[in-house]
C-alpha cells in the first residue's frame, strides 16, 4: 500500500509542476515591420507534413503580406486554406495574404495555415520548432510550440493575457 502511494505521488508530482503557468518559457510573441506574431504553434506529428498556426496583428502603419515560411533546411511551407469540398475536408493553396494596418489575421485549425510537406524530423509534443516566417516586411525567425497531436488550439488559449 505504501509503495503504491509513493508510486502515485511520483507519478503526479511532475504533472503538478507542469500545470503551474511557466513564464520562463521563450517568448511567444514576435514582431517584424509592425506585424505582431502571437503564439505560433503546431501539432506534434511523426508524419512528414505539419500545419503551422499563429495569430497575427498588424500594429504598424504599412500593410504586410504573409508569403509563407521556410525551415533552416530550406524546406518551404506554403499558405493553405481549409476547404470543404463535396463533404471531404481538404486544403487549397493560397496566394500571399495581406494584413492591413490595424487588422488581425488568425491562422488556426480548419482555417488558414502554413503547410509543410516533406518534413524530415519528428515533431515532439512540448518541444520547440524553429521556423522562418516569410513576409513582405522581411524574414523572421519564430519559435513554434509543439502542442499535442490532437490539440485544436494553442496551450495559452483561454488565458486572459
Amino acid at each position: 500500500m505504501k509503495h503504491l502511494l509513493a508510486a502515485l505521488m511520483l507519478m503526479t508530482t511532475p504533472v503538478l509542476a507542469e500545470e503551474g503557468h511557466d513564464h520562463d518559457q521563450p517568448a511567444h510573441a514576435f514582431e517584424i515591420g509592425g506585424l505582431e506574431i502571437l503564439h505560433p504553434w503546431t501539432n506534434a506529428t511523426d508524419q512528414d507534413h505539419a500545419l503551422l498556426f499563429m495569430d497575427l496583428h498588424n500594429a504598424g502603419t504599412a500593410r504586410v503580406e504573409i508569403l509563407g515560411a521556410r525551415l533552416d533546411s530550406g524546406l518551404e511551407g506554403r499558405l493553405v486554406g481549409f476547404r470543404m469540398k463535396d463533404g471531404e475536408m481538404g486544403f487549397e493553396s493560397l496566394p500571399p495574404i495581406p494584413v492591413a494596418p490595424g487588422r488581425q489575421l488568425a491562422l488556426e485549425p480548419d482555417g488558414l495555415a502554413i503547410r509543410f510537406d516533406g518534413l524530415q524530423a519528428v515533431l515532439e509534443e512540448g518541444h520547440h520548432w524553429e521556423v522562418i516566417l516569410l513576409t513582405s516586411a522581411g524574414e523572421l525567425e519564430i519559435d513554434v510550440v509543439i502542442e499535442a497531436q490532437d490539440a485544436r488550439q494553442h496551450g495559452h488559449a483561454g488565458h486572459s493575457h
Partner: protein
Amino acid sequence: MRDSWDSLPVLAQDLIIAGALLLPLLVIGGILLRGFRPLPLVRALMWRFRWANLLFVLLIAVSTGMGIGLIAQERGLRTGSAQAAEKFDLVVTAPGSELTMMLAAVFLQPSAVPLLDGAAYDRIANHPQVQIAAPIAFGDSHDGAPVVGTIAEFVTYLSDGQIEGRIFARSGEAVVGAAIDLRIGDRFTPAHGRGSGADAEAHDGVGIEVVGRMARSGSPWDRAILIPVETVWEVHGLANGHPFEDGDRIGPPFTPELFPGTPAVIVHAGELWANYALRSEFTVAGETMAFFPGTVLADLYRVMGDVRQAMSVMSIVTQVLVAASVLLGLFILTRLFQRQLAMLRALGAPRRFVMAVVWGYGVTLLVAGTMLGLAFGYAAALVLSRIVTHRTDVLVTATITWAEVNLALGFLSAMSVLSLVPALVVLTRPVVENLRQ
C-alpha cells in the same frame, strides 16, 4: 514506393486494393481447385441444404448490407450537407453558437437568434474584399415553407443565375425554390411564424407575387420562398432600410439608421483567400462572429466520424458474429454430409479434392451473401437517402463506392480463409469412421 503509389489514378489504387484483398481467396481457390471439378458436388450440396443455405446467405447479406448501408448513408449525409452549404463561404452573425447560427442561416431551421444592427451590416457590406453581403430575414412562412427576405444579388448567386422567370425587382415579389408548389404569377399571403404556431391572418392584406423559380440546388433553399428583405421588414411594420426619398428602390446600400437588423449576413468574397482574412476581421469580441459553415460542418463530421467509428465497430462485431455462426453452420452441415465425403475418399479422391468441395461450398455461400449484401446496402442507403432528402431537403444521394466494395471483399476474403477450417476438420476424422456412421 509511396510516391509511385500516390501517382496512380484513384481507380487504379482501388482496383489494386480490391485485388490485394481478394488475393487470399484467389490463391486458396487456385491451389485447391487446380485440376479438379468440384462444382457439380458443390451444386448438389447447395441444393440439398437449400433452406439452411438460404438462411446463411441472408444472414451474411443483412450483416454486410447493414455495415455498407451505414457507411454509404453517413457519407451521403456528409456530402449532401456539405454541398448544401457550399454557396455559404462565410456567415457573420451576432456572437453565439456557430452551430445554431449555421442551422438557422444555411439550413433554414427556425430558431430565435440575436440580430446584427445596421452599423455592423454596413461595415461588412463596405469592406473592399466583400462582393456580396446578403442580409437575411426570416420568421414568416407559407404553407410550411420558410419565407426568407434577402437581396437579389444573393438569389442570383445562390441559383447560379438559373432562374425561370425573373429575379424580384420590387417589394412584394418573390422567387421560389424548386420544390415550392407555387407557379409564376401565383399570389400568396405569408403567415406569421413557422410550423404549427404560424398565424395565417397576421399579414392579411399583404399579397406577394411569384415572379421566378430557382433551379434545384439540393439544399433546404429548394423549399424556401425568397422575397426582398425590405418586404419582410415592411410587412412587420419596420423601417425598410431606405430613406423615404429612395422611393421603391430595393437592395443595398441600406441606411444604417433605418436598418432594422438581420440575424445573419451571408458573405461572398471576391477571392478565396479573402474569406480567411474576413473571418479574422469580422470576429470582433462582443460584437460580431464570423464562421465558415464548412468548418462548422467539419466539426460536426468529426463527431459524426466518431459515431461512424462506433457504428463501424458494432457492424464489424455483427459481421464477426455472423461469420462465427456461418462457420458453425458449415461445421454442422459438413458433418451431415461427411459420409459422402468419406465415400469420395474411399473412391480414391485426394484430400485436396474433398477440401475443394467443402471450401467451394462455403465460399459459394459467402460470395452469394456478400453480393446480395452489397445490393442490400445500396437499397438501404437509397431508402434512407430518400427519407432524409424528403425531410430536410438536403439532397442526400446514395452511392456505393470502392470503400464499401473493398470492405465487403475484405470480409469475404477473411471468411474464405476461415472456411478452410471446416474443410480441414472434415479430413481429420478417419475415412472408415465416417463411412460407418
